[in-house]
């Protein structure tokens, strides 16, 4: 489904990428990830599930270039560095800039000319009122802050988006709304979504991997039929959620 409006649609076609860990990965003497190769499909949402400590965030940080070890190859042969936007569990809004200023943080940090018009359009697209643009993060609710963080991620206009449990800090109804918003606005981009919420993965993802074993390796799972965001009341999806939950609990 193409995104509504023109602002959030990225300019370049999104490449896929592959994370390769020929030696696995560990912290000190403790191995966390087994030797693995993970393919993230171009222009799709790939969800990565796993228990706490299974190394899913580590894998995401490797993809983002925040930690070294292993290789990350984009499918178009160019470097992935500089084509990645990052969205974390915490909103990471800086308290000294208002919502609008936070959306434009990347431009500010790179010393580029801030594009306030685009930032305002994006804030409207994630569902914030015009008056909210001038509010400080402390004046916004948790759900609104996460919306601003989503707008900041889209403002970067990168073909690849890496998300680390982006909606886990908000309440369930807000999470539900944010998932629909994200699925709509991120359409066409290559997304790697780390989550511990089976429902989130089943609603949003085109592909699902579960990190299993110790040291962990990704195992591919099937996804329910239909394009994301899938409705939460779909019986097939709910059955898959129960199965996935049991699988995660057993691991």
């Amino acid at each position: 489904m193409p995104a509504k409006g023109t602002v959030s649609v990225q300019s370049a076609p999104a490449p896929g990428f592959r994370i390769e860990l020929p030696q696995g990965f560990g912290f000190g003497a403790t191995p966390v990830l087994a030797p693995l190769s993970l393919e993230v499909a171009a222009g799709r949402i790939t969800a990565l599930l796993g228990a706490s400590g299974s190394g899913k965030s580590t894998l995401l940080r490797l993809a983002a270039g925040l930690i070294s070890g292993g290789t990350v190859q984009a499918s178009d042969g160019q470097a992935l560095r500089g084509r990645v936007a990052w969205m974390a569990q915490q909103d990471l809004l800086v308290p000294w800039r208002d919502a609008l200023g936070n959306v434009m943080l990347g431009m500010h940090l790179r010393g580029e000319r801030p594009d306030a018009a685009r930032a305002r359009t994006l804030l409207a697209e994630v569902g914030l009122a015009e008056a909210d643009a001038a509010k400080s993060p402390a004046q916004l609710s948790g759900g609104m802050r996460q919306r601003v963080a989503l707008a900041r991620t889209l403002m970067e206009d990168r073909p690849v988006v890496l998300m680390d449990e982006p909606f886990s800090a908000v309440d369930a109804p807000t999470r539900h709304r944010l998932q629909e918003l994200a699925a709509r606005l991120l359409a066409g981009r290559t997304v790697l979504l780390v989550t511990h919420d089976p429902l989130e993965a089943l609603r949003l993802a085109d592909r699902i991997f579960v990190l299993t074993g110790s040291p962990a390796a990704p195992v591919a799972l099937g996804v329910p039929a239909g394009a994301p965001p899938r409705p939460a009341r779909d019986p097939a999806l709910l059955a898959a959620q129960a199965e996935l939950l049991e699988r995660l609990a057993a691991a």
Partner: protein
Amino acid sequence: MMRGLLAAAGLVALWQGFVWLTEVPPFLLPSPGRVAQALAARWDSIAGHALVTGIEMLAGLALGALLGAAMALTLTAWRGGRRWLLPLLLVSQAIPVFAIAPLLTLWFGFGMASKVAMATLIIFFPVATAFYDGLRRTEPGWIDLAQTMGASGAATLWRLRVPAALPALASGLRVAAAVAPIGAVVGEWVGASAGLGYLMLHANGRSQTDVMFAALFVLALMALALWFTVDRLLRRAIPWQPDSLLSGRDP
């Protein structure tokens, strides 16, 4: 504010009562009335000395804050210099100011310069350590975000870590404002021809205890005024600092 005035009034009443009851000789403890008389009678001279001490305090505060902030930034930005500068920072605090006061007077003379140097020295440490601490404790998520946004090291320092450390710098400046009078007065005790510290020493030598108390009273007022002014200015300049947020929410 009201409570502070009441407490002060209570203290004065206690003092007056003590003088009445014990009939202590005025050269040991003058009554509040005598001190007020001395203050009125010697106002011109006391005001002149207060001006000297005030300038020393303000100049020391400005210079100490500037040098302290510069030291913190250097320690943060210059990895190689850290192991050389950190001991220097500690030494600057390990040597008691009283011990080097005669030396500073010898080097900088009996005028204002030696007192400003003393105040600078005493203010430098709290500002440098508080700001350096703040700079070291930037939220790691912000650093990750800046890195994926392609921010340079300099931009990350100036546009992310420095604003993030401003509340810490503010606490350092509050401590600095509280200790600034100590630096100035210690300097005046060791050797001076003007200032409230000099006046107190001079009055003490002639058993003019009431004048000494009057000078002390003015010094305390100046210290309080300095602290409240600095606190006010900092709150206005850094409205997002956590404590002002809390006090804003409290009923």
